[in-house]
């Protein structure tokens, strides 16, 4: 027997790796790892500042590497980490991937600024020791201890790196591990709020349990698809769909389970149940990060899977996805009307938006792809800014997210009310905002693809959803402020920068969207 183990004399070739192409991902993961080491060795009082410096450097560095690569990126995109003799590599670096990387890095930067903010709450929005039992005397003490669990920064970077890998993963196995890398930090971060600890921990546990279920669905789907195609590579699944003798049941069950896993992450339709609780319970900067970046990653991944792997089977999944889009829009629009809590309301709004995004994702044309990418970019910036503004309005117990406390806000702080109104209008999709352009692009792409019925339903849902955004606007401008209502905190530089970035992007993308749309439509997925 031993000689058999030694008998294999031949050497395997090194996989072809284009380091320049994946440098942004490597920088983000590298910065995250260094961040963990900083946590290990720095004394407590130096951690916050060095973590902020490191994370910002990492994200900006990754952005520069990305820009440098884009300037002379090969036409049509490449795949890297390609084994010898294989036709595709594990990571695809094509126009959608680059666009989504840019989106994720920009949104990640804004989120990081909000996460790092210490001006709104002394010590930041995060608990300084998560290990203490909530409800105890120590926890109440903790609320006043300045200082936070600075592990949040490396965790954010890991999540961001996972998202960037997720949207570029060219086989389902890499995709699954990326899915876990992006999810695990989020589960934890949802539970680190400084105030309302129990709510925050409940959010973390719910997100974790349901997320683990969704991951299991995804993995089961991957296994079935492997059984069908004999490979987990997206391109080979597509090839097998065209001509495999294996039973199609494996394919359909596999597609269904994989897509359910993705829809969960994108908080779509009937798989949304975690969304309101988690959005409400998580610390607001984390909610912003989750709402913007996770949605970008989930839909980025879904676009790639649907287009590259499942397109030959599209007539099978079109009807279910059609239904899911309708359900998601309906749930978001109708339940959004009944919410009394602002964070929950935005959560239902995100479910409605997820429905609109499904409309774009299932439109497998060039316009469908580019409009969905643009929608993700626009929605991400608006959402981050929305959560930034929500974190400003505070009373003695922290953030005042109850709708009634926002009554008459315009009289106290016209600027904040104005910005918030603008952002809500963007979410509703009123012209001159990025939300309008996004919706317009997605709906016209779907219309061109012959999905008129769906577009009509989407328009109705938009109109219903617009009602609850406008309700907040009316409340802010035409109600008398409560006598002991919340105050608007003047934000520090970080949160101001994040809100400004989000609002400015919403405005710019609403007025001159051409540059982003052009970039998004510069090319499709690498086959």
């Amino acid at each position, binding site marked *: 027997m031993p000689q058999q183990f030694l008998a294999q004399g031949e050497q395997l070739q090194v996989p072809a790796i284009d380091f320049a192409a994946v440098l942004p991902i490597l920088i983000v993961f590298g910065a995250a*790892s260094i961040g963990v080491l900083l946590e290990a060795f720095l004394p407590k009082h130096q951690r916050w500042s060095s973590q902020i410096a490191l994370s910002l450097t990492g994200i900006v560095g990754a952005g520069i590497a990305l820009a440098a690569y884009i300037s002379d990126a090969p036409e049509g995109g490449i795949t890297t980490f390609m084994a010898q003799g294989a036709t595709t590599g*594990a990571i695809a670096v094509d126009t959608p991937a680059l666009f989504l990387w840019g989106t994720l890095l920009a949104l990640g930067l804004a989120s990081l600024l909000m996460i790092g903010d210490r001006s709104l709450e002394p010590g930041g929005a995060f608990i300084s020791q998560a*290990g203490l039992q909530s409800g105890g005397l120590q926890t109440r003490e903790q609320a006043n201890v300045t200082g936070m669990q600075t592990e949040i920064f490396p965790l954010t970077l890991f999540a961001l790196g996972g998202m960037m*890998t997720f949207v570029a993963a060219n086989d389902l196995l890499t995709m699954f591990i*990326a899915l876990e890398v992006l999810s695990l930090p989020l*589960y934890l971060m949802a539970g680190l709020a400084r105030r309302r600890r129990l709510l925050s921990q409940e959010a973390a546990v719910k997100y974790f349990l349901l997320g683990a279920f969704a991951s299991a669905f995804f993995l089961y789907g991957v296994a079935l698809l492997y059984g069908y195609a004999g490979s987990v590579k997206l391109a080979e699944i597509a090839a097998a769909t065209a001509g495999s003798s*294996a039973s199609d049941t494996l394919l359909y069950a596999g597609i269904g389970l994989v897509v359910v896993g993705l829809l969960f992450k994108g908080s779509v339709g009937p798989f949304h149940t975690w969304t309101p609780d988690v959005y409400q319970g998580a610390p607001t900067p984390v909610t912003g990060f989750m709402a913007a970046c996770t949605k970008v990653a989930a839909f980025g991944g879904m676009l790639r899977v649907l287009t590259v792997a499942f397109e030959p089977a599209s007539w099978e999944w079109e009807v279910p996805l059609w239904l899911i889009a309708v359900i998601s829009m309906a749930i978001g629009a109708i339940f959004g009307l009944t919410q009394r809590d602002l964070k929950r309301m935005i959560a239902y709004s995100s479910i409605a938006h997820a429905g609109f995004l499904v409309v774009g994702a299932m439109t497998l044309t060039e316009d469908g792809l580019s409009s969905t990418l643009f929608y993700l970019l626009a929605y991400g910036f608006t959402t981050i800014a929305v959560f930034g503004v929500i974190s400003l309005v505070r009373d003695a117990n922290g953030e005042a997210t109850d709708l009634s406390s926002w009554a008459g806000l315009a009289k106290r702080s016209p600027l904040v009310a104005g910005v918030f109104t603008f952002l809500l209008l963007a979410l509703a999709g009123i012209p001159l905002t990025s939300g309008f352009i996004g919706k317009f692009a997605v709906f016209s792409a779907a219309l061109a693809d012959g999905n008129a019925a769906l577009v009509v339903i989407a328009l109705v849902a938009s109109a219903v959803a617009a009602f609850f955004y406008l309700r907040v606007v009316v409340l802010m401008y035409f109600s008398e402020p409560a006598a002991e209502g919340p105050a608007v905190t003047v934000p520090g530089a970080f949160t101001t920068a994040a809100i400004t970035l989000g609002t400015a992007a919403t405005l710019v993308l609403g007025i001159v969207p051409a540059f982003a749309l052009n970039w998004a439509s510069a090319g499709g997925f690498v086959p």
Partner: protein
Amino acid sequence: MTSFSQAAVVLAQQGGEDVVGTGEAIAFWVLGPLALAGGLGMIFVRNAVHSALWLVVSMLSFGVLYIVQSAPFLGFTQIIVYTGAVMMLFLFVLMMAGRDSADSMVEVLRGQRLLAALFGIGFATLLVGALARSLVNVQAQVPPDPYDPARGGGAGGLGRLVFTDFLFAFELTAALLIVAALAGIVLAYRDRREGPKRSQRDLVEARFRGEYKRRSPQPGPGVFATGNSVATPALLPDGSIAPESLSELIESTNTARLIAEQDRVLGSQAEHDDSRALLAGEDEQGSEQEGERK
């Protein structure tokens, strides 16, 4: 020797005796029901620890099934990682929540359990029905040779795949593990506020300054003095029994019975030499402690 045991069974039923060896069939029909029983046991047992142990049965059966299917490395990994490490972590979590703590069986949402069961069974039926049908016409593949990495089998073949096709996924796993460990520590670790750890010397000095109840260690039991049982009490220089050497658990031992008998014969207020008397009243002991502190 197919990749899917279900398919193997189906084929065996169709008379494909040349495809499935007798040994494999026996292994399957022993391990399959065992795995199923483990799964059902896990769900239906009330005690959480027992439930975890049923899961172990299930996982071990899977591990052996993998080995039977010519995937020895996968089988052993299943046993080492899942039945070993992951189950241990499960048990830690159960113990952390308290071995005796049980979920309340009251349904918060009415009809939830019924609906969950219905949907669960429906989903399982759908999948099993569809898959069983689809696996009938699966081509039985020649299994990879576990002794020849070049032909894709065993740990060697896995190693080749890990370092070629799935290199990035492999390195990404490291990121996943970092996050997992970091998250565990963040959630579980508490900073100690008291400052630096006290050294042996600090502790000795603290003892003699009177911060502790007694300066010397507790007396051990009188093992090997007169017998070799922990139940044997240690004797003080005057021959009486050292009360602190008596285990609280050993009341049923001969010594304890003897003392109890003495107490009964002499009357409870009797002053006897026996140092057990020191334990008789809490007040007495308390005053003694105070004296020691001064």
